[in-house]
């Protein structure tokens, strides 16, 4: 063990604090090239990450950037800057700490490039931007350490791919750079280490004492949850009671729409006027900032929130976490629970509130898993190549490069170690020429090779467009919502453009906990007034939907099979018994399929328990086969456990539709032409720079000029089916949204044992599916049938027939 630098030892001594063992261990490993710290929330993890920097810099550091800190949230960088400034001031260190995010003013960014601070706090997107400047080598000269906070969260998305490509670039600029990752509890720390470390170097993993086991239970509400639906509004009295008995409660929801509905009803029931706020990603920045400030000041008793509060911002003294709705994933549940009792040695306290009776089963299964310490996780796929295309363009914006050098550098990034030269070359060709079989753009290539064989921008002015397009978060097209009159009204938040398009003046919906009345659309702003009396429509906000993990699904099926439902509340056990009597219960080695009529449509329900994404793919495949069979499917909805399809004709032989080799053939043919692929294509095409991001100013200039990404997708599949963007779309869809592997695993397990149960009406287990959001239309013969019917009616009504 090294001796502690006196300024740090004195500081701890002066406060009467003793260092956590893992903080000490981090100091001892200051020289380690790649190090991952896994510690529960509240374990002084961030300070552990910075202590080696404070030790190395000392009281009188020379100028120049020493440590780069990267976090997934802008808010986190500001929070960390505040938290670091106290120890730095108290240790009397002459260290400058600054943050740099999308919100940082231009003048300050310029100054930071000319005269970087000792410690710079930033996000993956801002790092990518800084690396795209020609003076990147000068900005980062002398950089010694990089700290990646909440690395488990970054690793879950393409932001992690982008960041690791950025670190590979930094490592070339600063060969001695040391990397530290800070992570919450995860199922596979070595895999996260390989993600972080510069290939082929190993990553040392430090695991902190996980602390006492959490105090976690299902909330006893006295009333049973509803048969169907989400949001847990039935539990509001019991939840308010818990809020009143604790200092600060975080109430997590899985989607923004559910959080909104819940918050609205919570306020109506909040007769004691407890200060409770709402926080989610669709709210305006001002609204979120207000909540964050009130939270930090300890003025709130509860916050209704979504994943936007998942990450470790220290917003006060939370002593209870309530999870409303099934947790979907045990690992995420454990991380959320860790938000309570931010003191290292106190057990976290959490309550689960199932939103409906099916979720009771899932919550019980999750509780068993938490107690057994059985974390789940799917292995991370290889790095996304749309991100690589963007990185190649950004690298060219910074200066010329040799393809060989860039390939070597990129394959040192953890997510891209398996990248082949051919895959890389296809991305480079795409970035340079568009990569089309028809070489149409020889004169207008984006990248050209110079006399030394180095790739550079053909037109240096294109660097600006490349920088504008950096980033891997592609939002649905969102519209701002403002109170009328538009110029004076405060922005309330934003809604999906597709949702706004369904509104007619007078419709009401919820945003920021208020019911508002739709007045009209003006200059791409949704204008609303305050509505009071009418029942609101639900705003269908974009929100990440997680699939229930394989392990949790297996636990649920095991619970069904056990027949011993004593761990379940009586109402849920009764409900399952009713399902068993009216139909059957799903089991792991058989596949239950129900058919029943409802509201003039025929329904088919398949209980695959394969997770939301795989069930969605199953829906796409089955509706395709139904379309071919003339069954006129209209649409479907998928949840983690089932797919519900509706159409104009009944299905009499579902086993025939579900034959595994025919499904696989359908899958091969289908991949080319469906809504999920088109959505994936749009995202990948924007990231890769094929489609420029729609900035509000551009969209206002006229809709005639912009056209749908679907047109590009259809054109490519028709004229250039081997194009790299289609390959990338396929790769990305296979990873997450398609998840065909889980369907194949399910069908292999079932081996043709399909139980078709025709029912006269909707079954207990199928009922919740009717309230699911995210219905997917099938654009087939049924659409033309509907259109013909409607046309005749509408023309007659208008007196035009």
């Amino acid at each position: 063990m090294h001796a502690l630098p006196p300024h740090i030892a004195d500081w701890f001594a002066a406060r009467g604090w003793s260092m956590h063992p893992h903080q000490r261990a981090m100091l001892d490993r200051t020289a380690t090239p790649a190090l991952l710290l896994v510690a529960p929330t509240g374990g002084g993890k961030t300070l552990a990450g910075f202590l080696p920097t404070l030790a190395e810099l000392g009281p009188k550091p020379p100028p120049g950037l020493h440590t780069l800190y990267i976090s997934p949230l802008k808010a986190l960088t500001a929070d960390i800057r505040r938290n670091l400034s106290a120890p730095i001031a108290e240790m009397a260190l002459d260290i400058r700490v600054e943050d740099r995010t999308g919100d940082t003013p231009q003048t300050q960014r310029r100054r930071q490039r000319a005269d970087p601070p000792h410690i710079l706090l930033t996000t993956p997107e801002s790092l990518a931007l800084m690396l795209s400047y020609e003076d990147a080598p000068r900005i980062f000269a002398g950089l010694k350490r990089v700290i990646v906070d909440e690395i488990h969260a970054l690793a879950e998305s393409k932001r992690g791919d982008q960041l690791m490509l950025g670190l590979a670039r930094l490592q070339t600029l600063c060969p001695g750079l040391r990397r530290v990752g800070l992570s919450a509890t995860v199922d596979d720390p070595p895999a996260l280490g390989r993600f972080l470390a510069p290939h082929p170097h190993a990553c040392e993993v430090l695991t902190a004492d996980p602390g006492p086991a959490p105090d976690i239970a299902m909330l006893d509400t006295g009333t049973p949850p509803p048969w169907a639906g989400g949001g847990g509004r039935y539990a509001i009295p019991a939840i308010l009671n818990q809020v009143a008995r604790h200092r600060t409660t975080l109430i997590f929801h899985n989607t923004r729409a559910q959080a909104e509905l819940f918050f609205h009803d919570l306020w109506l029931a909040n007769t004691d006027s407890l200060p409770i706020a709402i926080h989610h990603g669709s709210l305006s920045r001002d609204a979120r900032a207000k909540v964050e400030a009130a939270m930090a000041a300890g003025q709130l008793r509860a916050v209704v929130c979504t994943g936007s509060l998942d990450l470790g911002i220290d917003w006060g003294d939370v002593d209870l976490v309530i999870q409303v709705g099934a947790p979907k994933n045990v690992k995420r549940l454990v991380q959320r629970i860790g938000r309570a009792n931010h003191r290292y040695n106190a057990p976290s306290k959490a309550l689960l509130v199932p939103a409906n009776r099916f979720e009771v089963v899932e919550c019980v299964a999750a509780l068993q898993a938490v107690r057994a310490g059985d974390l789940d996780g799917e292995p991370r796929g290889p790095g996304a190549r749309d991100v690589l295309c963007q990185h190649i363009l950004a690298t060219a914006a910074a200066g010329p490069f040799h393809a060989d050098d860039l390939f070597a550098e990129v394959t040192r990034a953890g997510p891209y170690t398996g990248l082949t030269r051919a895959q890389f070359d296809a991305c480079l060709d795409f970035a340079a020429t568009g990569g089309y079989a028809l070489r149409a753009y020889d004169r207008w290539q984006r990248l050209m090779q110079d006399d030394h064989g180095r790739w550079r921008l053909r037109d240096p002015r294109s660097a600006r467009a490349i920088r504008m397009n950096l980033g891997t978060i592609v939002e649905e097209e969102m519209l701002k919502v403002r109170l009328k009159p538009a110029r004076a009204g405060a922005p309330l938040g934003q809604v999906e453009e597709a949702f706004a398009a369904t509104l007619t003046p007078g419709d009401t919906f919820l945003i920021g906990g208020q019911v508002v009345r739709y007045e009209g659309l003006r200059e791409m702003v949704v204008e609303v007034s305050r509505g009071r009396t009418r029942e609101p429509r639900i705003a269908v906000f974009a929100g990440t939907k997680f699939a229930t993990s394989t392990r949790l699904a297996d636990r649920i099926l095991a619970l069904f099979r056990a027949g011993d439902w004593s761990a379940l509340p009586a109402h849920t056990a009764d409900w399952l018994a009713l399902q068993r009597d009216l139909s059957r219960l799903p089991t792991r080695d058989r596949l239950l399929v129900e058919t029943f009529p409802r509201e003039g449509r025929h329904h088919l329900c398949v209980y695959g328990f394969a997770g939301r994404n795989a069930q969605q793919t199953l829906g796409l495949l089955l509706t395709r086969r139904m379309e071919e069979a003339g069954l006129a499917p209209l649409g479907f909805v998928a949840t983690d456990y089932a797919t519900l399809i509706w159409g104009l004709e009944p299905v009499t032989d579902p086993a025939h539709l579900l034959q595994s080799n025919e499904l696989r053939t359908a899958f091969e043919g289908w991949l080319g032409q469906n809504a999920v692929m088109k959505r994936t294509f749009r995202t990948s095409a924007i990231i890769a720079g094929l489609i420029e991001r729609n900035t509000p100013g551009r969209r206002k200039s006229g809709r005639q000029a912009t056209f749908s990404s679907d047109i590009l997708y259809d054109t490519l599949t028709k004229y250039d089916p081997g194009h790299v963007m289609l390959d990338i779309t396929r790769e990305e869809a296979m990873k997450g949204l398609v998840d065909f592997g889980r369907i194949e695993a399910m069908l292999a397990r079932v081996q043709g044992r399909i139980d078709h149960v025709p029912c006269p009406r909707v079954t207990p287990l199928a009922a919740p599916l009717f309230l699911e959001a995210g219905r997917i239309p099938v654009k087939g013969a049924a659409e033309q049938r509907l259109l013909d019917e409607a046309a005749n009616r509408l023309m007659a009504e208008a007196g035009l027939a």
Partner: protein
Amino acid sequence: MNGYDFTLAGARVTALPSGGLWWADARLLAVSDLHLGKSERMARRGGALLPPYDTAETLSRLEDDIAATAPATVICLGDSFDDDTAARALPDWAATRLTALMAGRRWIWITGNHDPGPTGLAGTHLAEAREGPLTFRHIADPDAPLPGEVSGHYHPKTCLTLRGRRITRRCLLTDGQRAILPAYGAYTGGLACTAPVLDALMGPRAVAILLGTPPVPVPMRV
């Protein structure tokens, strides 16, 4: 013919699934807003390198319509090219296909806002053309003598919500006095027919003919 027949200023015309307008009695085919060369223009201006197949796709639509109708006259209603340079830079293979289409028939290029200059291609170049009761121009003229105006420019489209399904299609607008054709080109977006400018142009009994096979009429103001 898998189209939708209607009467415009006394002329019996047909809206084709492709977005073209076929006037059988005059053996005249009108198409609007081909925007040939759009991907090339975007690349030239330093924008994204879009799949360079839009010109091929648009021409193959036109070839199909011409093969099916065998028109004596074709009128391209303006914005046939995404700009004048795109017209001059038309690749040889595309010029050859276009020339083959023009052979043996009258061909009229109406001037559009995207392609104000002469294209250098054969055919007649006009600001507007009059055929019997119909006048063909690029942008509808609110003060034009009616009935009988055929124009393009606005790329009209319609959105309907039916049994919870949202359907968006390109459409041809007509009130029996005027017709506004949808964009025919592959890479074209649309303007919702609820836009005030379209509302002001069309009479109270206006119909939006949604493109499809076959095209389907609905009231323009649903």
